């Protein structure tokens, strides 16, 4: 039997190349005759563009061209929706106002481009931006989510009756009846603020138009190469196969790189054709903060209805969701908030209402977590508020309300981002909670450690929360697997990679079936020249959806190999196996043929070819799940807080997680570690600030605080439980966002617990020591 390579911590295929500095990232691409782009961006968040003078900029030596809306004609129109509208939800209303490639009449967010410069270097392109003079008529900015909807409010889109972008109500059971039966109803207002994805590599694109071949090649650090190719071809009147999108090594994605039909790809593809020279744009960090999408800001009005014993009868949540200036990405984020608010608790009645609002801020699209952290934050904070009123233990109130392991599949009654009713496919939430409580020694902490610390005047606090992570949603992904004459295996899939170890985990899936070494599987992701169907890398779906397609394709290739080898080895297929790059007779391992030889024989150059046969040891397969696989977990944290400065130190952080069957446990742990870093950042460091005029105040790492090594706990204690998903043959669930989801909720709970003697309640995420100090002063009545 071949050694198993699936479900095993195998070192990464891609590492030697990256470590040696030999991996090609976007800005490493240099083409002969290349030009460089820079965007002149509006400093105003909301203003009419009356005119723009580019004459001085055009005259600078080295400037090839300066282009404004009037140079782009029909191209200046709203782009396509990236995600369909929520028509599957009864009664949903929405207004779609998608991103414009360049400002024609009105600026709607600070950073929106009003001109693009093409020059011989980025230095010169930036010089030219300094000599472009737009004449703006400033307008009041729409910033506050609730004031935005008041009568008479300034409108972001003046053709709409209000700033309401969408309104969606979903309900299961009947909240009003549940509330009537409850012993206690707790109501709170809860804020979550905006954060940036902060991939270390900024966005970027290189476009080359080969006029003789009539072929466009686009290198782009995109999470959605097929969408980029298709949108470009459609817009430019080309066939899809005239456009090839290649995703080079990409320095992190975390959400925003999913967007296509953005100003950069729309304008630069057009200019590359006009100028017949390759063009590069590599975003700088300031642009990334200003004009790359971001996420999280919501204001929630939540109510929890409980019995005296702590049983949750109902939950109501009405929330305002900031869409930013446009809503090309429609409702993915707030729908995720809805599905993740109650997902792991058995709450009979749940009312949830989204009011999505246009503002003069950057467009909101998913950032690692994508609406889920907000839902979990609201639910977990409300459970804590109820526990406080009921004087119940925070772990106990969770334990008694968790969905039990015999309940799956659980229909949630709430339609999610994939437009089907959310169903929890599998899991074991109580075991996760119990394990975390054991690992953090919960009882001992409450009974011995914490009382002793308090007696000594120390402020130790513990937080413990549970969560789910909806992952692996449709529509589908595909893969093509080919065995080469060299006996090695090539795997191509439409999703692109931003560091998730696909070159290894996808190789493991293929190698498991084909009996080859993992290092002998070459994985190509995100190159439409290699595979051109698929949706993209988002919603923790790469491993689950593309991974399953790879498995299915590998099984097909294996079948082909066995069938063909059976002829050459004169042995029935059932007696053959794939081991070490050979097909061999199970009982007579010397009787074998190499996969390379088989691949050559499968492509006969002369002679007969049986009717109905397909050449090559090659197969394509697709996989689309009926609904997503749901991961879950539990996290606990102990904080030691300096009650004078309000600076917390994370003493311990424990996480138990269920990803179904992990392809590569080492990679899974790495994903969770990274998610937790973002979660800690979101809880206490990171925050995008806009002032009341819509000016971005956090356009550098001096102001936007990125979590550093010393901000993290010294060790993340982790354990896994494996409840394989029944939705796919490998039992996989996604994990990309897990760490980011519960962390802010756990952090706030621990902080409140640490500052027990102040009675402070922290119903806001993205805190700072100063903010905590202000809340404490308020709680003390000072």
């Amino acid at each position, binding site marked *: 039997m071949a050694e198993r390579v699936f479900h095993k911590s195998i070192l990464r295929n891609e590492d030697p190349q990256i470590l040696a500095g030999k991996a090609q990232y976007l800005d490493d691409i240099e083409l002969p005759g290349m030009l460089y782009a820079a965007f002149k961006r509006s400093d105003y968040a909301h203003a009419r563009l009356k005119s723009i003078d580019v004459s001085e900029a055009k005259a600078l030596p080295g400037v090839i061209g300066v282009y404004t809306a009037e140079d782009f004609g029909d191209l200046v129109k709203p782009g396509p929706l990236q995600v369909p509208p929520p028509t599957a939800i009864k009664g949903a209303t929405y207004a779609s106002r998608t991103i414009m490639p360049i400002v024609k009449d009105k600026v709607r967010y600070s950073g929106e481009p009003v001109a693009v410069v093409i020059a011989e270097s*980025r230095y010169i392109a930036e010089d030219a931006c300094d000599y472009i003079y737009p004449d703006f008529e400033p307008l009041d900015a729409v910033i506050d989510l609730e004031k935005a909807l008041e009568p008479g409010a300034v409108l972001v889109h003046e053709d709409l009756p209000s700033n309401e972008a969408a309104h969606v109500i979903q309900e299961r059971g009947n909240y009003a009846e549940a509330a009537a039966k409850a012993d206690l109803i707790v109501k709170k207002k809860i804020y979550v603020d905006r954060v940036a994805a902060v991939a270390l590599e900024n966005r970027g694109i290189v476009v080359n138009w080969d006029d003789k071949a009539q072929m466009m090649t686009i290198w782009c650090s995109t999470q959605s190469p097929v969408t980029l190719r298709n949108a470009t071809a459609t817009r430019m009147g080309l066939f899809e196969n005239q456009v090839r999108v290649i995703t080079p090594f990409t320095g992190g994605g975390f959400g925003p790189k999913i967007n296509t039909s953005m100003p950069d790809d729309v304008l630069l593809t057009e200019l590359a054709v006009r100028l017949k020279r390759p063009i590069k744009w590599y975003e700088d960090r300031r642009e990334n903060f200003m004009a790359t999408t971001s996420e999280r800001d919501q204001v929630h009005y939540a109510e929890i209805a409980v019995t005296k014993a702590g049983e949750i009868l109902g939950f109501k949540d009405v929330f305002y969701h900031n869409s930013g200036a446009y809503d090309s990405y429609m409702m993915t984020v707030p729908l995720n908030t809805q599905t993740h608010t109650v997902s792991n608790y058995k709450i009979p009645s749940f009312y949830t209402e989204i009011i999505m609002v246009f503002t003069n801020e950057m467009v909101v699209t998913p950032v690692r977590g994508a609406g889920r952290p907000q839902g979990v934050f609201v639910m977990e904070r409300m459970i804590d508020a109820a526990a406080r009123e009921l004087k119940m233990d925070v772990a106990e109130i969770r334990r008694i309300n968790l969905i039990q392991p015999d309940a799956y599949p659980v229909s949630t009654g709430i339609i999610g981002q994939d437009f089907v009713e959310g169903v929890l496919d599998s899991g074991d939430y109580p075991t996760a909670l119990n394990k975390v409580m054991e690992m953090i020694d919960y009882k001992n902490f409450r009974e011995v450690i914490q009382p002793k610390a308090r007696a000594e005047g120390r402020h130790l606090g513990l937080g413990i929360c549970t969560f789910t992570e909806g992952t692996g949603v449709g529509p589908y992904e595909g893969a093509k697997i080919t065995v080469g004459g060299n006996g090695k295996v090539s795997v191509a899939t439409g999703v692109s990679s931003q560091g998730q170890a696909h070159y290894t985990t996808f190789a493991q899936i293929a190698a498991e079936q084909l009996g080859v070494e993992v290092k002998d599987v070459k994985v190509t992701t995100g190159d439409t020249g290699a595979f051109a169907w698929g949706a993209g890398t988002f919603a923790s779906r790469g491993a689950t959806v593309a991974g399953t397609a790879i498995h299915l394709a590998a099984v097909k290739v294996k079948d082909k190999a066995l069938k063909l080898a059976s002829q050459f080895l004169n042995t029935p297929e059932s007696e053959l196996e794939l081991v070490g790059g050979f097909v061999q007779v199970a009982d007579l391992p010397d009787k074998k043929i190499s996969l390379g030889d088989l691949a050559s024989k499968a492509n006969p150059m002369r002679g007969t070819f049986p009717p109905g046969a397909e050449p090559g040891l090659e197969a394509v397969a697709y996989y689309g799940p009926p609904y997503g696989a749901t991961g879950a977990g539990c996290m606990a944290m102990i904080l030691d807080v300096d009650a004078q400065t309000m600076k917390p130190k994370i003493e311990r952080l424990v996480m138990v997680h269920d990803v179904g069957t992990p392809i590569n446990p080492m990679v899974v742990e790495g994903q969770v570690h990274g998610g937790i870093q973002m979660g800690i950042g979101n809880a206490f460091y990171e925050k995008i600030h806009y002032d009341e005029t819509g000016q971005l105040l956090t356009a550098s790492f001096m102001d936007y*605080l990125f979590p*550093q090594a010393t901000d993290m706990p010294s060790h993340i204690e982790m354990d896994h439980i494996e409840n394989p998903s029944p939705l796919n043959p490998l039992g996989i669930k996604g994990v990309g966002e897990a760490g980011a989801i519960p962390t802010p909720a756990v952090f706030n709970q621990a902080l409140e617990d640490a500052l027990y003697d102040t009675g402070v309640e922290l119903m806001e995420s993205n805190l*700072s020591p*100063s903010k905590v100090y*202000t809340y404490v002063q308020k709680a003390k009545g000072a």
Partner: protein
Amino acid sequence: MKPAPFEYYAPKTAEEALQNLTDLGYSGKVLAGGQSLIPAMNFRMARPSALVDLNKVAELAYIKPTAEGGFAIGTMTRDNVVEHDASIRQKMPIVAETIGYIAHPQIRARGTFGGAEAHADPAAQIPALCMLLNAKMLVKRKGSERWVNAEDFIVGPFMTVLEPEELLAEVVLPPLAPRTAGSYKQVSRQRGGYAQAATISLVSLDDRNKVKDVRCVLFSVGETPILSKYAAKVLVGNDATTEAIADVAAYVAKNECDPGTDLHGTAEYRRQMVEVLVGRSLTEAVARAKK
């Protein structure tokens, strides 16, 4: 984020540099370590039309003992050279302690002692340290020089007494009295980041452990580093009791600093932190001086 163009001068001697500065007048700017200037230029918030790069002027990088027992530090001496100088560490441990809070080692490898002083960032450590140690600044121009006390050198945020044709050439740190010790305390959002409030204290005790001299400097809570007058008034000649220190801390926070509200903290919080930090740094400095 590429800097705007500028004229570039790379003198090899101090004399040449002074000539460049004289020739350029208001259009010239000194490039020392560049660790603050170049980021500002990359953002195009700073757009000097000409830079006089001192990195090739070897004669401006040195640490020399002075006859009085202090140190003379050449303006181009890198932060980490000062930080790791064995003799300064032994005689004035507060210097290394303070410099250790400047950003990260990679920045301290390029940033210069004189450059930071002349930049006069209200949130920077070196101007506060110079004020704490009562440093003397040697200011040169072509054909002449003058001495300026640290307390008089900085006149506002990013503003010093330097004229365009002048160069801060050397900083002299006078020797410390016996039984003197310092303590640095700050609150910053992150390690290596800007302080929301910071205090450095330097306490000298007599042989009966009464305070002979005390200097307590606050920074990042006003337009320039601030030397507390009240600390000396209350503590000199007395025992530095817990109560006395608490009194100083409360008074200083209330009356001697002027923090503003910014993205990361309210004025109230920062003022409160001054009280906490003054208390902690004075307490630690006294304890260290007693050893």
